[in-house]
C-alpha cells in the first residue's frame, strides 16, 4: 500500500489523470466494478482505487476476470492480458448477466456513450432520424441497453466534451437515463440512473427533481462559459461559486504513470 493519504496535489497532472482520480473516488470498498471494451479511464480508475482508498473494491476485468493482476493496462480492455492471473473466470451467459441483473452486486457502472443528452440518456446506436436508414451507424448498445434499465448508478465518462457528444436530445435512446426528465424514469419502473458525468472539462450531476444535467465542479482553469460553449444544450446557471474538481495527488499521478498505465493507453481516449 502506498502512502497515498499524505500525498500533496501534483503539479504536473494531466487531464486524463484528473478524470481517472475523480472516477476512482466514486468507487469504495465493498463495491464491485466491471469494465467493457475501450475503457482505459474506468480500468485505470478501478485500479487506482484499489491501490489507494478502496483496496477491497472487487474488480471484474472485462466482465470476465475476477481480481486480476495484469502487468499494466494493455492495448485492449477486453482481452486476456487484462485478466491475467484472475481468481475466477466468470462466464458471460450464465454467470455475468445473472450477477449484473441481480441488483445486489455491480451496483455502479461506467458508461461511454457517443451521444449523451441533458437527461442522461445515452446513444451508441445511430445518428440520424430513421433507425433503419441511419446517417451514421454506431457500434450498438451492447451491455448499455441493459445497464441503463436495471437499477445501476451510471457514471458517464467523456474525454471529449463537445456539442456533438453532449446534446439536447439523443437521436435514439439506447441507454436509459432519466428519459424525459422529472419522474419519467421512476414512472417507467426503473431504479438507479445516471449519477455523474465526468468530462475533460468538468464534472456534472443531475438535479434531484428535474433530473437535468448540471455542473457540479469545474476542472482547474476551466470556466462555466467554456463548458457551456462545449455543450449542446443550455446548462442551468450555477447558484453561487462552482467548486473546483480536486487535483490528483503526487502519489496518484505516480501510480497511474508508473504502475497502472506506463504505456499511456489511457491517452488513446483523448483528443478524438
Amino acid at each position, binding site marked *: 500500500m502506498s502512502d497515498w493519504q499524505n500525498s500533496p496535489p501534483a503539479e504536473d497532472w494531466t487531464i486524463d489523470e484528473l478524470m481517472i482520480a475523480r472516477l476512482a473516488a466514486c468507487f469504495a470498498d465493498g463495491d464491485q466494478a466491471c469494465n467493457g*471494451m*475501450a475503457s482505459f479511464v474506468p480500468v485505470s480508475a478501478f485500479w487506482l482505487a484499489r491501490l489507494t482508498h478502496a483496496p477491497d473494491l472487487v474488480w471484474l476485468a472485462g466482465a*470476465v*476476470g475476477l481480481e486480476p493482476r495484469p502487468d499494466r493496462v494493455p*492495448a*485492449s*480492455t*477486453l*482481452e*486476456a*492480458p487484462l*485478466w491475467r492471473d*484472475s481468481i475466477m*473466470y466468470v*462466464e*458471460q*451467459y*450464465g454467470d455475468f*448477466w445473472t450477477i449484473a*441483473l441481480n441488483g445486489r452486486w455491480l451496483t455502479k457502472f461506467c458508461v461511454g456513450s457517443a451521444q449523451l443528452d441533458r437527461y442522461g440518456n445515452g446513444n*451508441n*446506436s445511430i445518428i440520424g432520424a430513421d*433507425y*433503419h*436508414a*441511419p*446517417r*451514421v*451507424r*454506431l*457500434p*450498438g*448498445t*451492447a*451491455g*448499455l*441497453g*441493459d*445497464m*441503463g*434499465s*436495471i437499477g445501476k448508478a451510471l457514471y458517464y465518462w467523456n474525454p471529449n466534451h463537445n456539442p456533438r457528444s453532449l446534446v439536447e436530445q439523443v437521436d*435514439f*435512446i*439506447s*441507454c*436509459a437515463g432519466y*428519459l424525459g426528465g422529472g419522474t419519467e*424514469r421512476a414512472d*417507467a*419502473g*426503473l431504479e438507479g440512473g445516471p449519477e455523474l458525468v465526468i468530462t475533460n472539462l468538468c464534472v456534472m450531476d443531475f438535479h434531484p427533481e428535474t433530473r437535468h444535467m448540471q455542473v457540479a465542479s469545474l476542472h482547474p482553469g476551466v470556466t462555466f462559459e467554456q463548458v457551456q460553449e462545449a455543450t449542446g444544450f443550455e446548462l442551468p446557471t450555477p447558484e453561487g461559486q462552482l467548486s473546483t474538481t480536486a487535483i490528483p495527488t503526487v502519489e496518484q499521478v505516480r501510480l497511474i504513470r508508473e504502475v497502472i498505465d506506463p504505456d499511456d493507453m489511457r491517452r*488513446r481516449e483523448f483528443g478524438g
Partner: protein
Amino acid sequence: MSAEKLTTLEDAAALVRDGDTVAIQNMATQAAPMALVRELIRQGRRELGVVCLVGGIPVDWLAAAGAINRLIGAAVSMEQFGLCQRYRKAVEAGAIRVEELSETALNARLGAGARNLPFLPTRGLIGTDLIDVNDNLVMLDDPFGGPSVVACKALVPDVALVHAHKADRFGNIGYEPTALWPDLGIMPKAATTVIVTVEEIVDSEVLRADPDRTVLPGFMVDAVVEAPFGAHPTSFYPRYGYDTAMHLEWIGSARDDEAVAGFMEKYVTGPADHAAYLEAVGGSERLAAVEAWEAS
C-alpha cells in the same frame, strides 16, 4: 461409441446455405471462427443473416464480400481498431438491416430458442427506443402483479459457427483453461446446425482425462474440422493473441473499395484453403508472433 463428425472445412461450410441465419462466435477481437468465415466467403455464400454478441472483423469481411443482408446482435466493433467500416457503410446504404439487442435481450432470444420456449423475459432495455423499432420485443405485464418485463421472442439460428481448442472425431468439444469465449453458453445450443473448428483433433481419451473441461457434447455438433490458428487474426487464448498488424492492415484498407478488393483477394478469396491463408499472412514467423502474446 458415437457417430463420426470429422470432415473438411469445405464440406462443413457447405452445410450453410444461402439465406441462412448464422450465429458467429466473436467478441470484438476475440475467438471468431475465422477459417469458416473465410470459407463461406470463398464459396460465395449470399444473403446470410449474422447473429453475434459483439461482432468484429468476421462481420466486416462478410460485409465486404456482400455475403450478408441482416444482423442480429448487441454491437459490432473491433474495439481499439475502431468501427467495422464495411459493415457500417452497408448499414448506412440500407444493404444490411440491423436488429440491435442488448446483451440480455440477445441472450433471452437465444435462450428461448434453445429451450423451445416462445419467449424469455428481460428487464433490460426498458425505457430505450430499441423496443419500439423491434417486433421481436414487446412489453409484457407480470401475471403476478410485479413489474413489467420485455418479452424477447425465441430465435433459432440455422447454423452456429464455433471455434474451440480441441475435439475428438465424434464432435465432443473441449477447451484449454482460459476464460470461456462468451457465446458458448447459448449460441450452439440454440442453433439447428452446429459447426465447430478446432485447433487440434485429439483422441477421446484426452477429453476423458478432463471431462469438466468438455463444453459441448458430440450429439450437439454436426461437423468438426481441424483448423489450427482457425481464429486468426482474432485471439484464441491461451494459444495466441489477436494479430495487431493484420487488423491495422484491414482498417487501413477498409475505407477504400479498391484497397478492400486487394485485401480480400490477398487474404480471403485468393488463398485456396486454410493452409494457404496461413502462408499468405506470413506463415510460421507471423504465427509465432501471435503465439508470443504473453510476453507482449
